[in-house]
């Protein structure tokens, strides 16, 4: 995510038509400090929230819709073990997941019948109390960070300059073109590489303004204290167990975003991308010589 500032490119001297293109590619200051800071704080925070969240899920690995839901009620999703088989059930579909979900072997060779394996949870062995403490503290980091970032995005020009989707970009052929380019792994070069494409804009907007707030509000909707303070919140999501289900689904949507994000970084040039998210400076990929 970033912001385009002036290119520090060595500009071609006038009247030098025959001069070959500059040897050093142009560098641009692409990501301002708040973007970089928030990016890395969030990376750590979301990892902790996910892993401690999976620990909390392990305490009751069943999901329901509505206000209530416990073992006697119908779960639309469940992770469990039957005999030697671990499985994930979504609706009526049962997928065997032995070794990964429901039944797995821990680092000491002990068979555990918990939903998510120890390597995916904080802490590694079953400890709901600690999982909750990590989760509920880092929920504050996420919420405060997101609030500050949203304010900065709105008032610091990031929204208008970098994330705003222009009318022309909404055109179906433009979106389709970007999808085709991504499918063919054809990424923008030169100046265009410093700006966000339409799919990039939509994913960042979706994460910052939809998914992350959804995580926070569905999380709050599960709190009995918040239910008394803001009774409307849990109603918006259709009840506490629905809020819990949406919280779980949105968490995996964030994981999906993360996977695509990492793949894109790898394809676009991990060193350049990483450097730009650490120092702010991004090396423009040179225009293809025709």
């Amino acid at each position, binding site marked *: 995510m970033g912001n385009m500032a002036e290119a520090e490119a060595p500009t071609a001297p006038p009247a030098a038509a025959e001069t070959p293109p500059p040897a050093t590619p142009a560098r641009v200051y692409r990501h301002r400090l708040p973007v970089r800071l928030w990016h890395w704080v969030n990376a750590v925070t979301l990892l902790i929230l996910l892993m401690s969240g999976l620990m909390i899920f392990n*305490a*009751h690995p069943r999901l329901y819709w509505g206000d209530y839901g*416990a073992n006697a009620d119908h779960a639309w999703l469940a992770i469990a073990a039957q005999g030697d088989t671990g499985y994930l059930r979504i609706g009526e579909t049962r997928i065997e997941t032995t070794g990964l979900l429901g039944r797995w072997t821990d680092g000491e060779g002990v068979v555990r019948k918990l939903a998510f394996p120890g390597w995916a949870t904080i*802490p*590694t062995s079953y400890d709901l109390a600690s999982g909750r*403490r990590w989760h509920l503290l880092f929920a504050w980091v996420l919420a405060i960070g997101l609030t500050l970032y949203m304010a900065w995005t709105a008032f610091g020009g990031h929204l208008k300059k970098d994330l705003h989707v222009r009318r022309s970009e909404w055109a179906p052929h433009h979106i389709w073109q970007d999808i085709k380019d991504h499918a063919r792994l054809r990424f923008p070069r030169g100046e265009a590489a410093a700006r966000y494409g339409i799919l990039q804009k939509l994913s960042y907007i979706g994460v910052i303004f939809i998914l992350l707030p959804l995580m926070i509000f569905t999380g709050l909707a*599960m709190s009995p204290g918040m239910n*008394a303070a803001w009774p409307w919140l849990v109603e918006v999501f259709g009840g506490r167990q629905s809020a819990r289900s949406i919280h779980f689904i949105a968490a995996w949507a964030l994981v999906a975003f993360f996977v695509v994000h990492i793949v894109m970084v790898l394809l676009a040039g991990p060193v350049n991308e990483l450097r730009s998210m650490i120092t702010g400076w991004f090396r423009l990929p040179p225009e293809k010589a025709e």
Partner: protein
Amino acid sequence: MSGGIIVPRRRLIAGAGGLVAAMPLLSACDAINEAPLTRKILSMGEEMHMASQRALMDRDALAREFTRADLSPVFRSNGTKLPPGAAYAAHAARGFADWRVAVTGLVTKPLSLSMADIRAMPQRTQITRHDCVEGWSAIGEWTGVQLSRVLAAAGLKDRARYIVFRCADRIGDALYYESCDLVDALHPQTILAWALNRELLPIANGAPLRLRIERQLGYKHAKYLTGIEAVESLDHIGAGKGGFWEDRVDYEWYAGI
């Protein structure tokens, strides 16, 4: 995992297994989790939640009350399902006719209430959602006396700041207990319930009397009540953290989230 609750935190795991490369990292994570400084930092979250929730909600803001149409078909029980020991069994056999609940501590007039005394007081019925720390919820209809009435009858002294709930269920080496501050103790929905879904409280749900503290999670709702004690500080109750699971596995004392 249906019945598998609240397993005490295991000590640091060590050793290597399938994920040889990742194991030192995982052990390091667990070591971080156990470090006293980490626990101190982690507990800041609880303080922030309590302060912010108390700021956001009215002192008497009510938990949602449902209708009979919303009741869970089965109200799940959890934790102790039958307190061990001959004494409790004898009480159960006599229908808890001799069960007494002591109201003691910083009160002007200590009480010893029978179930008949409790039922003779004005009653409140509420259909509320019970939220377990594990994640499940069940909706039930509860009837009982408001704790505020019992405390008023006993005369709370000015120095009293917390109410401790003593229970008959022994888990391992100790009796279960819980506590809350006066905001929750005097809340209109905080009741000592003896009926669930218009029937006498089943043993699995805490017969003959349990606490309902509707703006907090299930482990605060102490079952099998034998005593209510007004205190100035929780420091010398149990291990000082205000509850059985708080002392043992570091559950939050403020369980509003």
